[in-house]
């Protein structure tokens, strides 16, 4: 009954409704689209494409906001659960918390990539990607419904007397499970992996920008770097922010006492992951009809954005590594 929960549930219901509505129109478009026809149905379908774009844009915007709002609400709710000190504990209160978060992340990236493809398609005078993009829309519908049901299950399964764990024990090295494994990753090799992946992303991005090819490779590298960066956050970057060798929690960095540094970090990382995915998603269509004029420029912009955002992430993380008064012993 917390207002944050109500806001999230309301928003999620609306987003699912919008995605379902968009999907329904998408199916209609898929079945009947014929650009060369001047029939009334075709004209209606072209009008429908505007609706689908608008609905998806709002859905994406909400997914992004709700990702942060979800973490924030989980953080606020931690008082209700004995053992929870931050969002990590709240999310662990039942089996739906972490899967829900991952699902929200997936939906955000999916919807964002779809919008990139949609934008490219709209620039072309022959709608070359129309069938592809509406086919891609179809899996987004069950994902949206799944997210809604997980959210309902998660929040209805929250009972104040549940004893859960604090992030200190969830993300501790001794605890079995992914969180523990991530926390237990050795510091020095992780640092190497982090900087290596960022450097590779930068280099492949510059190569793609100058040579006009290699975008698929770049996209794959940037996605991998996204995962490595997330793992690095938990493994060692957070330690420098918290100045504690055992505090691996990825959520506490969103709190006031750490200067809300989590926001620029996650914004840069998520933004970069999205644009990197977009650049790769467009690669197969570079030569399809009118896309030959549209896609190269768009890919360049997306690649440039990814490089810049990842650079920002790396700079912030490195700043903390260098200037924090904490020093991790080399192991």
């Amino acid at each position, binding site marked *: 009954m917390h207002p944050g929960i109500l806001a999230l549930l309301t928003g999620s219901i609306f987003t699912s409704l919008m995605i379902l509505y968009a999907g329904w129109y998408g199916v209609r478009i898929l079945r009947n689209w014929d650009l060369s026809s001047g029939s009334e149905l075709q004209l209606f379908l072209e009008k429908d494409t505007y609706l689908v774009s608008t609905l998806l844009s709002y859905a994406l915007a909400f997914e992004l906001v709700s990702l942060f*709002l979800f973490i924030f609400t989980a953080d606020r709710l931690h008082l209700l659960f004995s053992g929870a000190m931050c969002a990590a504990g709240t999310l662990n209160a039942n089996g739906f918390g972490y899967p829900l978060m991952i699902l929200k992340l997936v939906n955000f990236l999916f919807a964002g990539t779809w919008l990139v493809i949609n934008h490219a398609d709209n620039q072309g005078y022959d709608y070359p990607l129309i069938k592809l993009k509406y086919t891609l829309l179809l899996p987004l519908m069950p994902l949206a419904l799944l997210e809604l049901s997980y959210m309902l299950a998660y929040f209805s399964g929250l009972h104040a007397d549940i004893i859960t764990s604090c992030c200190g024990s969830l993300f501790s090295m001794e605890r079995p499970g992914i969180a523990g494994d991530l926390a237990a990753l050795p510091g020095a090799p992780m640092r190497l992996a982090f900087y290596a992946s960022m450097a590779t992303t930068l280099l492949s991005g510059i190569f793609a920008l100058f040579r006009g090819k290699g975008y698929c490779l770049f996209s794959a590298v940037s996605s991998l770097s996204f995962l490595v960066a997330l793992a690095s956050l938990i493994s060692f970057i957070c330690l420098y922010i918290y100045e504690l060798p055992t505090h691996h929690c990825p959520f506490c960095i969103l709190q006031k006492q750490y200067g809300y540094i989590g926001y620029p970090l996650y914004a840069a990382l998520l933004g970069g992951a999205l644009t990197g995915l977009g650049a790769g998603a467009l690669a197969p269509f570079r030569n399809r009809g009118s896309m030959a004029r549209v896609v190269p420029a768009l890919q360049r912009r997306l690649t440039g954005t990814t490089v810049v955002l990842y650079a920002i992430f790396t700079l912030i993380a490195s700043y903390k590594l260098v200037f924090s008064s904490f020093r991790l012993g080399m192991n």
Partner: protein
Amino acid sequence: MKRSLERHRNILDFALSSLSRRKGKNLSLLAVYSLIVFIIASIVFFTQALKREAGLVLQDAPDLVVQRMVAGRHDPIPVAYAEKISAIRGVSEVKPRFWGYYYDAVTGANFTLVACDDPPPAAESIFIGSGVARTCRLSEGDFLPLRDLNGAPALFSVQEILPAASELVAADLIQMRGDDFRRLFDFPRGRATDLAVGAANQNELKTIAAKIVREFPDTRPILKSEMLRTYDAVFDWRSGMVLVVLAVAVLSFIIFAWDKATGLSAEERKEIGILKSIGWETGDVLLLKTWEGVVISLSAYFSGVILGYLHVFFFSASLFEHALKGWSVLYPEFRLTPVIDPYLLCVLFLLTVGPYVVATVVPSWLAATVDPDAAMRS
């Protein structure tokens, strides 16, 4: 980029002009919308402020309170337990507390009576909270007649009225000397209402509580953190209930907004037809409608939030106190500490602007897809 910004600016200008040309419709929408935002904002601000006050108040509460339970009900605890509890490692102090409730038949109010020894009032004198003073119409020097357990009258002189700033906690409070308290309630000797336990290290409280229960199975230790959690949960539950009831109002608003948005007058339809015939694309008209929606939502949001803020922090939420403070005769009068919480503002935004956006997406699109040749034929 520059072209894009100019385009947005131009279309925003036209949106503002368009809104002002249909003042009646848009003002009525804005009024209803602002009202909804105002109500939701008031509830959310009020709950959060109360939670914050409760948190601040509980800061001074004892880390751990030990009560005795007999047959599942609260019973006075032997003061002798205090010695054994102080011996537990980590306990810094144990203080017996004497307090209870007194039902006053005359006013129908429940007072909280607390034995206070630091410093104590004079014999047969009391410190009272401003709620008590108001309800019983007492000033310093007046007398408050109470009845002891046997029905015999006990007259107490009002020595001091506690400052108004403490209203939230002390509205119904009566403080008296320890022996006056024991005499009034015929309180059993060697017993206290509960024991307040302090610990040097907060992290050890759970362990201490466990040890206390092991040593004295008839006791129930209550941690401060649990009290905070309960307050939070109750406030959230209450505000949630009200918000859910409000959902009906919000739903009506959505329908209202939808109706306003779909109800394009012939004039508006013609105008859009004209725009499209002179070179505005569907995307441009959609942007126009979006900007109109943004202007209305943001205006309603900000005015509703500001009014809600003023209502809660400067008028003490007079419209809602009954639902949120609980049923009681003694309503404290107090000023809540204003607090602006970005998280709350974001939640409010989603709860109020979100439904409006969803309600107007399809009507905006319908408006934007009006055929231009309809304008040619009109």
